[in-house]
């Protein structure tokens, strides 16, 4: 079993495995999104305080969760790459960053559109919003730093260090609503107590989060396959693979 897992640390083996997995993850994402949107838009009741504006939650919360989660996974692969010097780990990190940045942008955008009708403002410089904006800059910084260094191996290591330093921002985002007084509401969902929302709202939100999760995996695997080919374009196995591109 151990041997089998490590086999996929080799780019050719992982390339083929990822190719088989991508359609499954994207299909799962589409089905979950269809179910989640149906529950979110047609089954979940109107909120007694916010009216229909709360339906932004089905976009906002999954995107915000994914923006933090993808960053942690990205930092994990960076750490693996630095410790074990495995080039595939760095490629995984590089493949995750654009999708993470996209979810961060969606979280900020939908947050602004939710803030306007509920708080009366698109944006405030409070802890939660500012730290989430820093997360977007961290993703962009990671990608820019990587792109600015010509030698791929050096770029991997430099960007990985940046990603690892930046991971401190993730708990700051998560706990910001407890640590500082902020316009942003506290967590509606926590492992420690019962959720403070209607069951159908919660189910819709969780299904949309699963959809976002599956999409993130599918999109990152698509990207990592291209990155593998770009990086290993001189290897024999890539030439054999080209017929199937």
């Amino acid at each position, binding site marked *: 079993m151990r041997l089998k897992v490590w086999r996929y640390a080799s780019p050719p083996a992982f390339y083929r495995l990822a190719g088989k997995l991508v359609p499954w993850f994207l299909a799962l994402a589409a089905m979950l999104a269809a179910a989640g949107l149906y529950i979110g838009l047609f089954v979940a009741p109107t909120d007694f305080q916010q009216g*229909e*504006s709360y339906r*932004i939650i089905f*976009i906002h919360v999954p995107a915000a969760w994914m923006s933090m989660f993808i960053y942690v996974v990205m930092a994990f692969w960076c750490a693996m790459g630095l410790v074990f010097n495995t080039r595939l780990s760095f490629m995984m990190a590089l493949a995750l960053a654009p999708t993470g940045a996209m979810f961060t942008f969606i979280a900020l*955008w939908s947050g602004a*559109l939710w803030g306007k009708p509920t708080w009366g403002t698109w944006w405030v410089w409070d802890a939660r919003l500012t730290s989430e904006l820093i997360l977007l800059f961290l993703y962009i910084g990671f990608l820019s730093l990587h792109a600015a260094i010509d030698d791929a191996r050096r770029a991997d290591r430099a960007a990985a260090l940046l990603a690892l330093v930046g991971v401190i921002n993730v708990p700051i985002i998560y706990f910001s609503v407890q640590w500082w007084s902020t316009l942003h509401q506290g967590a509606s969902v926590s492992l420690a107590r019962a959720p403070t929302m209607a069951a159908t709202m919660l189910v819709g939100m969780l299904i949309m989060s699963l959809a976002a999760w599956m999409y993130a995996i599918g*999109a990152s695997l698509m990207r990592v396959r*291209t990155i593998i080919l770009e990086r290993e*374009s001189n290897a024999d196995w890539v030439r054999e693979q080209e017929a199937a591109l």
Partner: protein
Amino acid sequence: MSWGSPQAFFAMGGYALYVWGSYAVAAACILVELWLLRRRRRTLARALSRRNEDRGLDHAPRQT
């Protein structure tokens, strides 16, 4: 939740701009990302096949 009419659904209780603005931009982001992923892969495929032609390799990958 049962919406009385399609109009009521699209009006979102007066929050149409905010709700649909969020959903539309999220959908657009995902579509653009998928398009960029496809484009990056195609560009690479073309570059690799050109290189192989230069080297006189016989197979030219199909353009998908």
